[in-house]
């Protein structure tokens, strides 16, 4: 008579028993976690990244490695993160995205606590699918291509002015000095492509005429045809959206052809010591971009001044903005971890998305996509061996020599 009822009662009792049996397990799990957390306090926090220590981006990569090591020393001197020491693993990706992807896969397999981004946009783009899948928040300390923030990724945050806005200050200056005809050359890689795309768009909005634009192969070594085409098109301004080596090569091609535009601007290179080392006196007059840390050699904040001094003392070199960006990435990460109070990656991601701080390279505040939205860049020119800020007008240390 009561068979069905009894079965139901037994089933309910069984389920209740399961619940009750689960409680001690949960408790045990909680205790295990607590114990693990207690152990964690003694374990160092492992942070890993790859950098271009060889290959075409090596000058910038090495510069960043020096800054990261300085940050590692400083953060441990200050007591580490969350009271735990920090160990920074830096591997050489040889400026190759595929190599970087392998390295980051290995970092993730080793379950490092945190990751930092490699140098160059193309390398960063290559590792993003991996880091996104494993929910590692990533501060892009060596990448500025807009493409990075157009893929719908949610864990990557920019530090630099996005590539699409890199040349805005320069174009603003051109409008002010009524230089209207531009030639734009750009390399076949994300950062350069994005910088060129931004340049073309801003030029149109500012009413400037682009008389010549050309994308070039990344393996290209002879730039004289490009220079000749710009000359023929009557360009007053030549903009090179590329990296150090390409900026140097185009300058040499100009010397070879014997033609000098009124403005030669390169997105990367002119601010770097290697640019001067390679070009010597020919580096003079070339326009470039610096981030906020460089106001004509005057440190905008005590923190950036201290970093510049210590870098100089430690390595006998002056830091470029890549070094500033690397050290700033470490500081921003430390601030986010401190605010989150843990290494929980999702929470850390949320903190970074809303963080608003002044780093040694400028203000850090990203938009809804993670793209840097508050930092801005300066236009510099090498004048008599010295890097002068020539635009914006309010921050000028020297008039541009046109």
């Amino acid at each position: 008579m009561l068979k069905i009822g009894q079965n139901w009662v037994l089933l309910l009792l069984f389920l209740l028993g399961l619940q009750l049996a689960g409680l001690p397990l949960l408790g045990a799990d909680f205790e295990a976690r607590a114990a693990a957390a207690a152990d964690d306090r003694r374990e160092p926090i492992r942070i890993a990244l790859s950098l271009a220590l060889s290959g075409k981006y090596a000058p910038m990569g090495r510069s960043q490695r020096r800054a990261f090591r300085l940050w590692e020393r400083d953060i441990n001197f200050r007591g580490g993160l969350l009271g735990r020491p920090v160990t920074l693993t830096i591997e050489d990706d040889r400026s190759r995205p595929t190599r970087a992807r392998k390295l980051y896969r290995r970092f993730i397999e080793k379950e490092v606590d945190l990751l930092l981004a490699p140098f160059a946009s193309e390398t960063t783009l290559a590792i993003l699918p991996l880091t996104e899948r494993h929910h590692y928040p990533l501060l892009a300390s060596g990448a500025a291509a807009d493409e990075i923030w157009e893929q719908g990724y949610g864990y990557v945050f920019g530090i630099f002015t996005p590539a699409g806005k890199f040349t805005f200050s320069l174009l603003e200056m051109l409008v002010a000095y009524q230089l209207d005809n531009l030639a734009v050359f750009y390399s076949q890689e994300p950062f350069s492509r994005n910088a060129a795309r931004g340049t073309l768009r801003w030029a149109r909005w500012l009413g400037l005429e682009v008389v010549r634009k050309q994308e070039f192969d990344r393996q290209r070594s002879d730039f004289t045809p490009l220079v000749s085409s710009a000359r023929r098109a009557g360009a007053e301004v030549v903009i090179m959206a590329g990296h150090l080596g390409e900026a140097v090569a185009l300058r040499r091609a100009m010397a070879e052809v014997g033609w000098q535009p009124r403005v030669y601007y390169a997105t990367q290179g002119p601010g770097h010591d290697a640019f001067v080392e390679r070009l010597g006196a020919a580096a003079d007059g070339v326009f470039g971009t610096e981030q906020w840390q460089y106001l004509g050699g005057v440190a905008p904040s005590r923190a950036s001044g201290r970093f510049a001094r210590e870098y100089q003392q430690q390595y006998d070199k002056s830091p470029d903005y890549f070094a500033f960006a690397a050290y700033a990435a470490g500081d921003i990460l430390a601030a986010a971890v401190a605010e989150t109070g843990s290494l929980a990656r999702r929470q850390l991601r949320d903190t970074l998305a809303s963080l608003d701080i002044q780093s040694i390279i400028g203000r850090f505040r990203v938009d809804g996509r993670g793209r840097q939205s508050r930092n801005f860049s300066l236009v510099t020119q090498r004048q008599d061996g010295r890097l002068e800020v020539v635009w914006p007008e309010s921050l000028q240390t020297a008039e541009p020599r046109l």
Partner: protein
Amino acid sequence: MIGGGGLPARISSRYYLASILAALLIGAGFYLLLLKPLDHFIGTVIHASMREAVADVQRLCEYNYGALLRAGVVGDSPATRIQQAVTLGLLEDYAASRQLRIQVWDGDELLLGRREPAPAEVLPAAGRLLATALLVAPDSRQAVSKIDFAGRSHYAAATTFSPWEWRLVVLKESGLYQSARQRLHQAYYATIALLLAWVLLGIIFFKRQIEKPIARIISSLRQGEKPAYRGAYEFEFLSDHLAAAMAEQEQLHQRFFQQQKLESIGLLAGGIAHDFNNLLAALYGQISMANLDLPPGHPARHPLELAEQSADRARSLTAQLLTYSTGGTLNRRIQDIAGLLTEIGHFVISGEGYQLRLHIADDLWESAIDRQQIGNVLHNLLLNAKEAMPSGGTVEIVAANRELPTSSGLPLAPGCYLRLQIRDYGPGIPAANLSLIFEPYFSSKPRGATKGTGLGLSICQSVITRHGGHIEVASQPGRGTTFTIYLPAAAPG
């Protein structure tokens, strides 16, 4: 089949109707109270979001134009071009961060955004684009329109910025809202499906767990059989009680027929006994007169004495018959039954090998009885008990008070009764004889001078019934027999 109040008569039909109505009510309630307001809320959010976006766009333009004015720049100048470019850049960033698409038109030239959709597609929806005022009125839902292009549905709103003669179109893919709305509709359909499943399962459950058991019980009742359902507790309970009620009814019927039969026999026997008694009176007179005429020692005197003795026995028999049929005249007085039981018990149950056990309640109620007749009944029953154990044994007399409820299972009105039990431990009465034991002239004893007339128990039953009581017998072969008498209490408590 329609029952009272226009409802179907069958409980199953009523249940199905109620389930369907409940499902419809829940479905309608879910739609009207939850889905519809949510749908409306989503619509409101869409329009508010679009209005806010257009207002932001307008503010951005105003702020940057205002910066120019504050710097004393008016008209077309490099500073104006720069500020316009800055504004376009900000609009682009704003659109990207808000997942919007913004078109900025300067005349026919598209400054920002993709060409699609053509302004002509948006213009009618957006209204007067040449006005400088914000075209999207804060409380106007019509200001936001929905258009399709590039294979996708978009919400569109437009505004103008007359200082720079810009026309601005803000577009937002409806995908997010559409999917929210779709999910709402899916939730509704899922609810409908769940409700239908609920109704279906309810019907299946009702059919198996309620309708079937009821049908089985009804089917048994229709066939005049006792229901014997086994399953759900409630129906099992009902089935058992119905079966018990039917059994009781059967017993009552049997008793009623028995009563009728006995009454008929009694009437017949009474009539015969009355006439026979008259004849016996005449016979007695003739024998007496013959005896008067005969000298002492006459050889005919002996046969006459024998005839007189036979007539005596015949008169005794007719007296018994009259008592059975009419009960005689009851001379009822309130009596101490305990004393009567003790007295008769000790009188009858005596002799070697016999033992009497009396269990009489101290507070045994009194009863209004004809002491003579009830004494005869008890005497008769005790004698039967003794005779059931020819080689001796124990006879028990148990007397207690009983309050009978409405449904006691006895043919007695509810009230206070004395229950008297006379129990022997003899061979018992065969089951076949139990139903006949109170019938006149039924006797298991051999007939003769020392044998009973067969009227004893039937007379006992007659006497007890006439006292408003009841007598019954229970016996198990080999375990003895118990006669139980119920007599109405005179002054209970």
